[in-house]
């Protein structure tokens, strides 16, 4: 198999696109690295070297002593596992020689992030935080308070994300709203232990995926990626806490600690 210079340029563009999609939609670094390399090799490169950093990927293809290097900036597009699955599927099809470079490119360009109906997500997240309140030992009144507090917070989180506000501001405001609604339950003594709703209703704002990705990146040798994700997740946690504290100061309901 031989590649012209032009074909090799085309190949590296396709591989870079795949890596960029994976990176932007929240895949862990090992997956970004492996899948990009596999797509490049399946399309005929001798080897693919790539460097994954928190906001960009640099990728080099090698063929017959000829190197082509390209960089792609990766803006965060939010976690989307369906995109990750689709890129992985395209990679496997390319490896099985079911697709050539042109078809892989076409398919990658056709991918559109799927989003669930937003009200379905709001409803499920309300129930989810309600379940957390059950785990903390709350009764059905607390479940109801938690449901409404976290559903309201989720609606706000979606609205602000849709308007491209900073996630840090977004999470602080959502935490403020959730805590304020949950503290109504404490003020009106709704249920046995209404302060449980305070702790449960903000759990939708835990940056769980970034935290798990951070630790697994570090475990698999991508230390700098892991640190970057860890710092970002910690900042999110901090801004959620600032939102909670602001609300507690305003309403005077301090039931969290103690």
């Amino acid at each position, binding site marked *: 198999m031989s590649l012209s210079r032009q074909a090799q340029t085309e190949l590296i563009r396709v591989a870079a696109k795949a890596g960029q999609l994976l990176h932007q939609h*929240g*895949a*862990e670094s*090992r*997956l970004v690295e*492996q*899948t990009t390399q*596999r797509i490049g090799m399946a399309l005929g490169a001798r080897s693919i070297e790539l460097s994954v950093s928190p906001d960009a990927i640099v990728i080099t293809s090698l063929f017959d002593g000829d190197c082509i290097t390209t960089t792609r900036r990766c803006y965060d597009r939010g*976690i*989307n*596992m*369906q*995109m*990750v*699955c689709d890129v*992985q*599927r395209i990679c*496997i099809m390319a490896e099985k020689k079911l697709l050539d470079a042109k078809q892989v490119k076409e398919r990658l360009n056709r991918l559109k*992030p*799927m*989003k*669930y109906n937003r009200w*379905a*997500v709001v409803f*499920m*997240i309300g*129930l*989810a*935080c*309600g*379940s*957390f309140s*059950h*785990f*903390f030992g709350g009764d059905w009144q607390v479940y109801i308070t938690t449901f409404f507090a976290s559903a309201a917070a989720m609606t706000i989180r979606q609205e602000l994300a849709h308007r491209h506000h900073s996630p840090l501001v977004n999470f602080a405001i959502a935490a403020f709203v959730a805590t304020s609604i949950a503290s109504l339950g404490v003020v009106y003594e709704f249920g046995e232990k209404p302060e449980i709703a305070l*702790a*449960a209703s*903000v*759990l*939708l704002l*835990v940056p*769980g*995926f970034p*935290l*798990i*990705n*951070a*630790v*697994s990146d570090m*475990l*698999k040798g991508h230390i700098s990626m892991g640190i970057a994700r860890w710092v970002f997740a910690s900042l999110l*946690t*901090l801004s*959620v*806490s*600032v939102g*909670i*504290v602001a609300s507690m100061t305003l309403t005077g309901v301090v039931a*969290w*600690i103690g």
Partner: protein
Amino acid sequence: MDLITLLIIDAWFAWIPAVGFAMVFNVPKKMLIYCAVGGAFAHSFRFLLMHFGMPIEWATLATSSSMGFLGLYWSRKHFIPRPVFTVASVIPMIPGSFAFTTVIGIVQLNSGGYSLELIQIVVENGLRTLFILAALSFGLALPSIMIYRGRPIV
């Protein structure tokens, strides 16, 4: 109540957050059922282990590594990367309220000044967050660290 009933109630309340968060991460529709099964299994298994007196960190490690291997099986069956199932399934076990308690404690240390009680809250909750989180991620990564070691899983 006997143990079986408690386990079933625990599993019932655990699949809801697993699916809810899977929807936030836009897991494909067909895979949501696996997240539900994984979430219910993981949380009730940890409940069982803790019921027999295992500390929460070790129970989490045991649970998340079995979830890691279950995810391995599903991932090779459906040709889908593992985090799609595994992360959503362990979401109900993420130490969210420990993490928030820690940081709220730090914020209050700043505003209210030093107090032994606050320091205790910060240190205890902070350490618990760290260890549970490390146990979770390490358990999930176990198959690729111990068995696959750099080879792709799907």
